């Protein structure tokens, strides 16, 4: 280095040890993110946990800590338990159907050659579109009397279905919309997974005798999609747990509370009833559920990781 001719434009900053300059820049670069993570993630979580032990309500001048009172109320709150079970039902339907259909669509679309792009576009369209708008559309598509779907059902000579005004059906109708919205997303993930399966694995399997559709599926495709399947299942679960838009647009939790889900209840308690303490406890429970799902993901990802 010293033998190189010195150049006029070289700054004296060269003299500063590289390491030190790197450190300064690193702090500078990390600072905005650190500040934001503190303000929008850490502080609110701390506050919400604190509030969950209080009887605070927005605008109130005095408030006090009430211990686990809010949680006790939650455990005995019929509407909370109802929302919890509705959400669980919704999640189980949406996750199982959107994962299975996503896989099926991916397998069908994979290997359609030039039409693959077109199918991808079509199935992904719901993901890119505004759920509030399409939720409104679905509300009238599934209208019990004049909705086109019911017109079709009636034309086939079948009994009309009260999609949104029968408490035992409404949550499934919402779940169907959830699947409709999510399946393209999952299909893309599965397609990526399918593309990642080496071709000669199928050839090896064919020579070993696994050349039927089911043997290929069970021996190669499905196991090789293991990591993808776990990931898709987890993301679908997280998405499904956060169902809100369709409830807010279509059913408002009805009929008879059959579509009241956790997030809708959280929204109502927080921003319509302003029962801040109770809502905070609800938030903490919601947080714990979501963290648990994430933990499952991390755990499961460790278990099934190839290469």
């Amino acid at each position, binding site marked *: 280095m010293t033998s190189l001719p010195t150049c006029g434009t070289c700054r004296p900053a060269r003299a500063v040890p590289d390491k030190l300059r790197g450190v300064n820049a690193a702090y500078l670069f990390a600072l905005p993110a650190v500040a934001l993570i503190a303000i929008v993630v850490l502080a609110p979580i701390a506050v919400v946990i604190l509030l969950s032990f209080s009887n605070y309500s927005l605008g109130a001048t005095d408030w006090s800590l009430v211990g686990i009172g809010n949680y006790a109320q939650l455990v005995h709150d019929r509407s909370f338990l109802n929302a919890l079970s509705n959400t669980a039902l919704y999640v189980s339907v949406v996750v199982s159907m959107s994962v299975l259909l996503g896989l099926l669509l991916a397998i069908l679309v994979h290997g359609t050659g030039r039409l693959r792009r077109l*199918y991808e*576009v079509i199935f992904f369209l719901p993901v890119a579109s505004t759920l509030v708008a399409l939720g409104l559309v679905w509300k009238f598509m599934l209208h019990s009397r004049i909705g086109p779907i019911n017109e079709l059902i009636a034309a086939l000579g079948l009994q009309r279905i009260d999609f949104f005004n029968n408490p035992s059906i409404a949550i499934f109708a919402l779940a169907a919309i959830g699947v409709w919205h999510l399946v393209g997303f999952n299909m893309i993930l599965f397609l990526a997974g399918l593309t990642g399966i080496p071709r000669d694995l199928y050839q090896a399997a064919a020579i070993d005798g696994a050349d039927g559709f089911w043997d290929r599926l069970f021996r190669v495709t499905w196991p090789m999609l293991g990591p993808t399947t776990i990931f898709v299942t987890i993301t679908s679960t997280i998405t499904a747990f956060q169902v809100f838009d369709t409830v807010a647009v279509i059913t408002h939790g009805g009929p008879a509370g059959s579509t009241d889900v956790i997030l809708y209840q959280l929204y109502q308690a927080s921003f319509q009833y302003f029962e801040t303490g109770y809502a905070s406890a609800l*938030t903490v429970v919601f947080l714990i559920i979501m963290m648990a799902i994430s933990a499952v993901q991390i755990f499961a990802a460790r278990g099934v990781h190839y290469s």
Partner: protein
Amino acid sequence: MTSAKLDVSTQELRAPSLAPSLAAAVRHGLLLIFAAIILLPFAWMILAAVKDPSDIFSDPFSLDPAKLRAVENFSKALTAAPMGLFMLNSLIVVVGVLSVQLITSVAAAYALAQLKFRGQTLLFGLVLFALCIPVQVPALPMYIALAKLGLLNSYFALMFPWFFSAFAIFLFRQHFRTYPQEIINAARIDGFTEIEIVLRLIVPSALPAIAAFSVFSVTAHWNDLYWPLIVVNVTEKMTAPLGLLNFQSAEGVSYGPLMAAATIITSPLVCVFLLARRYFVEGVTMTGVK
């Protein structure tokens, strides 16, 4: 190997007993059925947006050219409720959120990926932690804070919680890490400052990831209902989905204009999607890098 070559052998292997054409017919038949279900609401929405409101339910899937009311429906959608303003608000929010997200995330991701500093592990741990926090959790305290500061019903309130994106930082870090340290050191020797390194070397190399994330972010915030519903209760600051939700309560339900409004707010993203399909697909696939 050409793709044509792959297809031939795939067909042979998958259904040795079936004629390939029959298998393909079954495959495309199934796909067409699914495609029809997926597209049905879009078709109904667009039809309802362009036809006479009185025909929407009596003849759901017909279109009488003589009774085309597209102009009336769309002009009503744009005047009765200020859909134009809602769209502008959404645009402002989406652009504002994305720019701050990119600036903070690129900087932080570079520091995490290519620099060394005390607390690095802790910060990365926090990012991973934040990745698991659903957005609805900090919403309540944040709402209280914004209310106390008198900042509700502002663009700032609409954007602020999203300025930090754990996903962006994580995604960019993973990409930046693959950038060779040697080139960065060479650039330092050539007299690049750290900012120049980021802007002239790192960012160009990670453009696909940045594009994919941008598409992701724009989609999420254009479509978001939950947060705008909380912090905005005046018409002037409503975003497109919130505006649409209130379109009916203000107007009484008039389906032609309502569906026209739904079409209007859905179309920008669908257009972006059709143009940047690749980045949407990559964006989805990148969520799998975890």
